[in-house]
């Protein structure tokens, strides 16, 4: 059940009406938990047992930690459980492919069969939400949630279950305890965020996807300009696709009086790759920062170990995104760039580079890293980049409207960064923006519904 479907519209309307009728946080909690499980079961009813298993296992682990102390072996049970579940559902095929590749390279003539498993929607998100709670408890950042139902609601809350944001227990559980219901401001903000999200997804991301899919489908066929524009199209597609989902999730949650964390802060205005990760998928970056980078030693044990920690964290982040070598490579590149930018930051010369130049340079770097992310495999990614630098002639097949839209999006990023768009925070301006977006949606949207990129992670 995607947010931009009629099925969801009916689901949401019924739930919202019941939510407004029912009084009291506990009853509302039960209702939303029940609805969340239905929402998740819509994809595949059998996977409801998977999420219930994750919830119950981590709930029990924290219960045991409270009883027997915050011990590492108990924490390990949760980590191993999460790795096993993710490994089976997400990485088994990748592992089998890699083993077969090695067998073929060694000429053994044997092969392991590739398991055909349907990836449960949002598995990486809810496992990280639940595991984050266990880590938070282990490090003493949060209290144990006594009620299984409240904890289940926190993990399975339907707006965030498919593609985040990966919110922390300390932020969410107190809100569920109160479940005060939405104020008029919450409703206004919710409507604005939801409309902005659906606009970003359908009007912007799906348009850029038309071109990006064509170019990435067969990069060898296109000239340099097309390849460069294809990379740019994907850069905007993934941003609007993911931030659109987040906006919709935040808008829906807000209409139930729940505040989800912000996940994007104009990422293409970052002055370096480190800052990029402070602006892009913030909930995941902070998760990896708190539970991988810092426990590995962070920046406390010398420059070499710091670089190792950065690269390890980014590699794992790449692997989290997908079970394929191109995601690992994408993570590795970000890790190396991140380490290099840290090293370069120690030289005073970098301080003299104007901020606008840093922003543009970082944007270009990020565009190139997305090529690895989007390509079918590493070989395709290299073909793509080689193609761009071959400077082959040819009139690009990119529509003028799309190029203009890219320019407008980038210009709006700059204006927003320098707070020139603050007038948009006024309710009347937002009202007109919502009306304009609704109008665009009516005329641009098609009856074909496309999924979100991040929901497959």
């Amino acid at each position, binding site marked *: 059940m995607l947010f931009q479907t009629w099925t969801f519209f009916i689901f949401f309307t019924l739930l919202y009406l019941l939510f407004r009728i029912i009084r009291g946080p506990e009853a509302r909690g039960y209702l939303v938990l029940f609805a969340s499980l239905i929402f998740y079961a819509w994809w595949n009813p059998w996977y409801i047992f998977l999420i219930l298993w994750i919830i119950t296992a981590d709930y029990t682990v924290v219960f045991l930690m409270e009883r027997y102390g915050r011990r590492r072996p108990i924490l390990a049970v949760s980590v191993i459980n999460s790795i096993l579940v993710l490994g089976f559902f997400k990485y088994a095929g990748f592992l089998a492919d890699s083993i077969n590749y090695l067998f073929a390279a060694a000429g053994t003539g044997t092969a392991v069969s590739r398991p055909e498993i349907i990836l449960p929607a949002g598995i990486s998100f809810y496992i990280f939400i639940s595991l984050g709670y266990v880590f938070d408890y282990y490090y003493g950042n949060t209290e144990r949630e006594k009620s299984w139902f409240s904890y289940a609601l926190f993990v399975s809350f339907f707006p965030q279950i498919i593609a985040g944001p990966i919110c922390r227990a300390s932020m969410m559980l107190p809100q569920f305890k109160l479940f005060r219901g939405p104020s008029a401001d919450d409703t206004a903000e919710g409507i604005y965020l939801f409309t902005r999200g659906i606009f970003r997804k359908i009007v912007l991301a799906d348009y850029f996807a038309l071109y990006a899919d064509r170019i990435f489908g067969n990069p060898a066929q296109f000239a340099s300009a097309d390849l460069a524009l294809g990379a740019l199209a994907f850069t905007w597609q993934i941003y609007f696709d993911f931030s659109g989902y987040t906006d919709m999730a935040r808008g829906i949650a807000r209409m139930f009086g729940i505040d989800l964390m912000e996940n994007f802060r104009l990422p293409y205005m970052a002055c370096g790759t480190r800052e990029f990760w402070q602006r892009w998928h913030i909930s995941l970056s902070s998760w990896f920062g708190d539970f991988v980078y810092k426990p590995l030693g962070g920046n406390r044990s010398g420059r070499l170990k710091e670089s190792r920690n950065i690269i390890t964290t980014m590699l794992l982040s790449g692997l989290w995104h997908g079970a394929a070598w191109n995601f690992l490579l994408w993570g590795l590149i970000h890790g190396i760039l991140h380490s290099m930018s840290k090293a370069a930051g120690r030289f005073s010369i970098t301080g003299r580079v104007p901020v606008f130049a840093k922003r543009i340079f970082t944007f270009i770097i990020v565009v190139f890293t997305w090529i690895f992310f989007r390509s079918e495999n590493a070989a395709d990614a290299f073909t793509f980049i080689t193609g761009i630098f071959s400077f082959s002639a040819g009139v690009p097949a990119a529509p003028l409207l799309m190029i203009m839209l890219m320019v407008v999006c980038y210009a709006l990023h700059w204006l927003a960064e320098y707070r020139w768009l603050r007038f948009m925070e006024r309710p009347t301006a937002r*009202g007109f923006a919502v009306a304009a977006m609704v109008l665009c949606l009516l005329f*641009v949207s098609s009856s074909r519904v496309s999924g979100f990129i991040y929901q497959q992670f």
Partner: protein
Amino acid sequence: MVTMKNLFKITMPVILVMILASLLPGIFPCVDTAQFKGNYRIPYSQGENYFLYEKYINRVASSGRIAVIGDSVIWGHYTGSDDNLVATLNASAGTDRFANIGIDGIHPAALYGLIDNYCASLSNRRVIIGINLLWMSSPRHDLSGGVNTSINHSALLSQVPGRIPAYSPSVEERLTLLARRKITLFAWIDHIRASRFADRSVYRWTMANPRACPGEYLAGQEESYTPPDPVQPDRMTGRDMDWVMPADSLQWMYMIKSIRKLKTRGNDVIAVITPFNRFMLTEKSRLERDMIISVIRETLSADGIPVIVPELDKAEYYADLSHPVAEGYSIMAMQLAENTLFAEFTGQHK
């Protein structure tokens, strides 16, 4: 109080825009109606543009012409708009007495949806309905066989699960089709897209025409229909049909429902069983075809519906299994004109 004001400020423009948008379908239908004259038929590319169809039906109803409804045989798949059955009937009558309201590719289950949803304004008018045996020629055509993912005019089918065994879309598809059917604004947007923009969004159009000026997109496209080549008579060989008998046929059930729906709306109805190419049937299939025709005749006669069964006696009058060529339509029109039931029907004035 301040917060309520903020909510009001956000929702008001949206409500205003929605009200304005919902008025659009009522303001702009006149653009299409100018062309609904003579031997007009719904263009091939607009076959699924039911908003346009409804406008056309309204015009036919107000003009008092006799509506001829049916599938591609009535529409005239192998002919131009001036060579099909309705055009030939008009030519022999010397006036535009008949209106071709057939739709290419429509089958009885969809025809029922068409009549039920879009033909209300035809109440109390005279209607000639074409019955094509093709839709009973196999369980697949009859939609009573296995699931079929490419059913024509699925938007017109009943969206209640289980009613049509071969039709099994997702809940989301059913809801989308219902919304497009029931919400006039969406139907109008689909109509604008289909009739002005070749059924493509501006986005897809820019991808297909990257170097074209966006102004060209707004200009729309001229409709042109080139009928396909007919099957040559020497290639017409006898084949065995896997007929579904009327008692078991889903399509026949919907045809009966369609006719009864028209009757309950006060329509005078006459049924024409369009010729089914006997030169492409084995002896056994031909006998079964004749049996089906007699059952249809009996059933409809019991309901007080006159039935006419024109017959084409040469293979060259056919384009394929069920479609006549232009000459075939002339023969059919002649047979109809000579038929007493037809003469009585067309001579009636309500």
